[in-house]
């Protein structure tokens, strides 16, 4: 209903709205918002579970949703591959991960698709969704993305690989060696930095000698693109461009998306120790969700009623998943399995998760 109204009114406006300029249908533009809301709701729910003593550890995507959804949605699920890090809940959700997947891992359910309770929450990995498994080490997955892109090329798949990592990760060996090789071989990789200005308590100025991570691209002769990571459409635009470039055989791009970290580093952290009230308030003002909501409202793509329906549906998904997840219990005798192969392993695009 409301959508029709929206469309019709849009007909009369002279300048086309940005999402249309970017070739996104109204439905797609709304879907991006739904994904952001779903990730945010899943994230907020985990903090409640943590306070309830049901989830020992939480690490958030809050403030990164636009960067993650905007970029992941610019790729092709089922074709392209993702190498995320712990903060990428919204990215994996945009790549097809469900509320159930998330909640099952949050509560260490044996059927958790990413680790079955073996890893902390938000340690993603799904052959089916073409999301590589990751550990907790910062930056070690960056050369994995390079290797996965090399493999895709050798195997004649025309898939693009996106690696996500934080600003702190760019200080590390793996960043340097991973990008250098990808650039030399012109591999189809997108190196996507979610720069939230902090590595736990360490501000970017103590982390990097250049204020803009995009400047690091010059060392590898690849494009370095800085983008407002709270602007989902802007991120979608630059990522699409990087993906085209990768598919065209022109090699990697380094994207530097300036995000905000709206929560402490993790449930173990207390950011009041190193961030001022003023600074935190300023960050809040850059929350990507109200920003995109405003855009959708302005262009009459969504109204209160439509948004309410989306939020209710999300709440239902999470509730259902929670009820199911709370039932599951792990079998201690499985703890020693999978050190070496004791079951067949699928390849990307197949199998569980």
């Amino acid at each position, binding site marked *: 209903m409301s959508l029709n109204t929206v469309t019709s009114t849009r007909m009369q406006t002279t300048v086309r709205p940005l999402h249309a300029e970017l070739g996104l249908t109204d439905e797609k533009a709304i879907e991006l918002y739904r994904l952001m809301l779903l990730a945010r709701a899943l994230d907020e729910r985990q903090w409640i579970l943590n306070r309830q003593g049901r989830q*020992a550890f939480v690490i958030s995507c809050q403030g990164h949703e636009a960067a993650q959804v905007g970029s992941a949605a610019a790729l092709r699920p089922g074709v392209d591959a993702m190498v995320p890090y712990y903060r990428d809940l919204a990215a994996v959700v945009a790549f097809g991960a469900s509320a159930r997947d998330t909640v099952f891992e949050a509560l260490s359910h044996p059927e958790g698709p990413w680790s079955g309770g073996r890893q902390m929450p938000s340690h993603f990995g799904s052959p089916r969704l073409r999301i590589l498994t990751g550990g907790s080490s910062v930056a070690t997955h960056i050369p994995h993305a390079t290797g996965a892109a090399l493999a895709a090329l050798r195997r004649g798949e025309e898939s693009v690989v996106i690696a996500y990592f934080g600003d702190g990760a760019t200080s*590390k060996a793996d960043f340097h060696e991973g990008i250098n090789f990808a650039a030399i071989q012109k591999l189809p990789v997108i190196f996507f930095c979610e720069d939230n200005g902090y590595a736990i308590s*360490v501000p970017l100025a103590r982390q990097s000698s250049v204020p803009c991570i995009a400047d690091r691209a010059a060392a590898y002769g690849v494009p370095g693109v800085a983008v407002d990571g709270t602007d989902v459409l802007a991120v979608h635009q630059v990522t699409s461009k990087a993906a085209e470039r990768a598919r065209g055989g022109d090699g990697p791009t380094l994207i530097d998306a300036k995000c905000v970290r709206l929560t402490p580093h993790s449930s173990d952290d207390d950011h009041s120790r190193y961030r001022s009230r003023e600074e935190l308030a300023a960050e809040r003002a850059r929350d990507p969700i109200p920003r995109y909501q405003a855009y959708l409202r302005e262009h009459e793509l969504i109204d209160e009623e439509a948004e309410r329906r989306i939020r209710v549906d999300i709440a239902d998904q999470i509730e259902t998943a929670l009820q199911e997840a709370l039932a599951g219990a792990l079998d201690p005798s499985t*703890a*020693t399995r999978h050190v070496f192969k004791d079951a067949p392993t699928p390849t990307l695009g197949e199998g569980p998760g």
Partner: protein
Amino acid sequence: MAVKTLIEAVNEALREEMERDPSVIVLGEDVGVHGGVFRATEGLQKEFGAERVIDTPLAELGIAGIAIGAAMNGLRPVAEIQFADYIHPAFDQIVNEAAKIRYRSNGAFSCPIVVRAPFGAGVHGGLYHSQSVEALFYHVPGLKIVIPSTPYDCKGLLKASIRDPDPVMFFEHKKSYRRVKGDVPEGDYTVPLSVADVKREGTDISVITYGVGVHLALEAAEKIEAEAVSVEVLDLRTIVPMDKEAIARSVSKTNKVLVVHEDNKTGGVGAEIAATIAEDHFEELDGPVLRVAAADTHIPYAPTLEEAVIPNVDDVLAALRRLAAY
């Protein structure tokens, strides 16, 4: 004497050594403003300034390499690796550089660094916040390895490590940080490296252990006393160079040995201890040298799974009973 936690002992040792010796610096991730994710360096940057308490970039190789270079030019750096699980990126700098500097320069250079890292399981940290890494450095000539089990030992050993002329790996069990409390004297004292400590006297079985293993052993020893088995608990404290005399004394006294550590079994430090005893004390042994250690797996996150792989008091008791039967 005040009762303090293990983490307070670390903090106190660092503060006192920085006051005593201006060449001591601390560097690592989040060690400055934040005071460290476990608060080991709490207040140090305020007191000694950002020039001596340095927040580094997220780069363990660099942290170690920079500490090594600084040590070769007159400083005594104490590098914090936020979790022992993240020491592996620094492995090359520690093993190929720090450990070899004195030897390769024919004694002309030295590398007096201390690399501190919280290690060990039991806090539901999963594969990357639970590792024991002592066995990975144990085999490398030129590295000393220290693992304290009590706040008193911790403060004294850390001070001795900072003053030591060679590279010292100093591993602190993170589960013990706040749970293990004990008397810690104010002011300066050291506990010498390479001197083991009998934490409990006994006559029937020797438990040779370190770190949290000491607490498992002491608890098991108490319990099995009821069964008229007298257990001696030897806390190695320094893993390399090891106090072989103390081991010899205990073995000749009890003629039965159980080695306990939280690290997984195969190729763990316990292997060398057992092998040494089998080699040097064969005639004295009344039973096999047993080992209690973690399963040869990684450490999973979920409590149910984690508890299934790491050793507990019952495992120690079972092994003691087996030995008692000999």
